[in-house]
């Protein structure tokens, strides 16, 4: 456990330096949350780089590369003029502190649950964990393992940021141990909640509101699928959307780049992260048009590119792309009953949460349409990608829904919940009243 905690803290330290250099105008919560996510991606990306150049993995090598990146960004940032902080001095309230404490108790409950024993999810054993453990023993990415037809069940084409993050923890500990991986997932959730807390406070000016809004997002941010890519995808994708939405509202071009950096990491986590990049680019176009600020989104495309190229070089194929995709879509479109039955048969989780979300959405949508154009377009297009995936499935439609629907839908619940909570701000804090949004 100590090795895992130290590894997470070191990554957090590096990430905070990086995030404060990239977002000097942001409040401490946004910097801390974003810093944790960026910090974890650093050593994992270093391991990826070491594998590409053929250097065997070691903790010092990964550490030196990570520190070099942090130092470089820090030095570049120091040469730029200081930024003005966007965080507002919100009124400290006992109520907000109590609500935050309740949130902390729930996060600690999640930590207890997620670290109580080894990871139990099959997708960890059969996909994410098996790759990480194999790479760890191999001392690098084992391409022969991924290419072998007997290992097709491990979905060799899936992006590998998560297995490499597991490997960073294993290198820090000196051995493989799947029990304390739960701490990593608690970190992903807590980081997302910190960013949401900071962004809601910045926007509403109310500590109590932002504490309540964050409390409402706890279940969406803390993925129950320990060991699976949903946890980091929710964090990278969700925080990426929050930061880009914020950058558009504040007309902060550099904020777009930081958000795009996180979306690039989401794309390096899971194939749905790649579709999220496409959705987010279209979302930004919907919000600002074909503006030259679009170029600021370059990290979202550049970061996942090496893996896309490498998996093509190593002929790692996606199961959804096998055979005739169009004919399957055509076939499934002719069975709308089966499709709709599957959607209604398998739950989305947390009915009361969804009822509340729908109520706010319906009431608050008309005045929020312009302001939330980016986030709502992005999330809507991402949902369309999900529908496309289910329509093109080579497996049975019902089988595919049964084993993934609730999990896949959970990927967007955190950013959607955040946006819907932000949509309540103009109603609860009308302009001119204390705490009204900027």
């Amino acid at each position, binding site marked *: 456990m100590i090795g895992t905690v130290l590894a997470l803290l070191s990554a957090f330290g590096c990430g905070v330096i990086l995030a404060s250099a990239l977002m000097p105008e942001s409040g401490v919560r946004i910097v801390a949350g974003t810093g944790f996510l960026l910090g974890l991606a650093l050593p994992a990306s270093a391991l990826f780089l070491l594998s590409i150049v053929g250097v065997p993995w070691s903790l010092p090598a990964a550490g030196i590369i990570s520190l070099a990146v942090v130092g470089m960004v820090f030095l570049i940032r120091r040469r730029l003029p200081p930024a003005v902080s966007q965080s507002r001095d919100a009124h400290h309230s006992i109520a907000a502190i109590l609500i935050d404490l309740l949130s902390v*108790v*729930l*996060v600690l*409950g*999640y930590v*207890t*649950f997620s670290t*109580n*024993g*080894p990871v*139990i*999810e*099959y997708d960890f*054993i*059969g996909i994410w*964990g*098996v790759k990480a*453990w*194999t790479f760890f*023993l*191999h001392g690098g990415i084992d391409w022969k393992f991924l290419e072998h037809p*007997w*290992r097709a*069940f*491990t979905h060799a084409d899936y992006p590998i940021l998560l297995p490499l993050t597991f490997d960073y923890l294993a290198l820090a500990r000196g051995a*493989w141990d799947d029990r304390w991986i739960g701490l990593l997932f608690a970190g992903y959730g807590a980081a997302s909640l910190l960013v949401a807390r900071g962004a809601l406070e910045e926007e509403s000016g109310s500590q109590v509101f932002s504490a*309540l*809004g964050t*409390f*409402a*997002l*706890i*279940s*969406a941010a*803390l993925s129950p699928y320990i060991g699976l890519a949903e946890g980091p995808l929710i964090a990278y994708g969700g925080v990426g959307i929050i930061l880009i939405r914020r950058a558009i509202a504040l007309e902060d071009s550099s904020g777009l780049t930081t958000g795009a950096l996180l979306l690039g990491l989401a794309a390096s986590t899971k194939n749905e992260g790649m579709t999220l990049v496409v959705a987010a680019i279209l979302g930004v176009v919907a919000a600002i048009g074909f503006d030259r600020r679009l170029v600021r989104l370059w990290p979202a495309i550049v970061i996942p590119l090496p893996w896309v190229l490498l998996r093509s070089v190593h002929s790692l194929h996606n199961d959804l792309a096998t055979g005739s995709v169009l004919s399957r879509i055509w076939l499934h479109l002719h069975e709308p009953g089966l499709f709709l039955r599957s959607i209604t048969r398998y739950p989305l989780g*947390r*009915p*009361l*949460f*969804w*009822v*509340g*979300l*729908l*109520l*706010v*959405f319906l*009431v*608050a949508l008309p005045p929020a349409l312009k302001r939330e154009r980016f986030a709502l377009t992005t999330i809507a297009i991402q949902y369309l990608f999900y529908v496309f995936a289910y329509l093109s499935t080579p497996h049975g439609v019902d089988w595919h829904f049964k084993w993934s629907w609730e999990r896949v839908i959970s990927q967007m619940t955190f950013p959607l*919940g955040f946006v*819907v*909570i932000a*949509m*309540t701000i103009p*109603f*609860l804090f009308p302009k001119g009243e204390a705490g009204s949004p900027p």
Partner: protein
Amino acid sequence: MGTSVQFRSDQIRSAIFTHPKRTAVALGLFLMIVGSFEPFYVRIFFSDRDALRRLYVELPYRKLPGFRPLLSRVRELTPLHAKVALWVPPGRWNEGYEYGYYRSVYLIAGREVVPLLDAADHFLSSNLDQADYLVCWHCNPGFAGFKTVLRTPDGFLARKR
């Protein structure tokens, strides 16, 4: 007291009718907050976590009792990169073989698990020829050319002679 309660309910009624959208949005937010609460994250502090841990250890392998302890011993007794053939009776892909094969690759990571069956239930004898070891869950199939290394109630491990 009665007047105060009456006064407050009048205030709420007035607020609802004066700002119906604001009230609906506040109600929606309230439902999101209540609906998001996960009682398990509180209950976990008071539950028998040792029992839960024991459950977690075996849960992913519950359909093949004893499979995890057997493969843990195989892990101790085989070197890295060894080719380990796996046999799970009754020798049908959809009746336990797929389940055991996929999980064995994780349990003995670093070794190459060699399947002896394909998805159409064909026995892959050429794969057995490649194997350095043979592990068999709850059986002793008596393949020729292998010497027993480990025998437990959960199965056995044999090394190629």
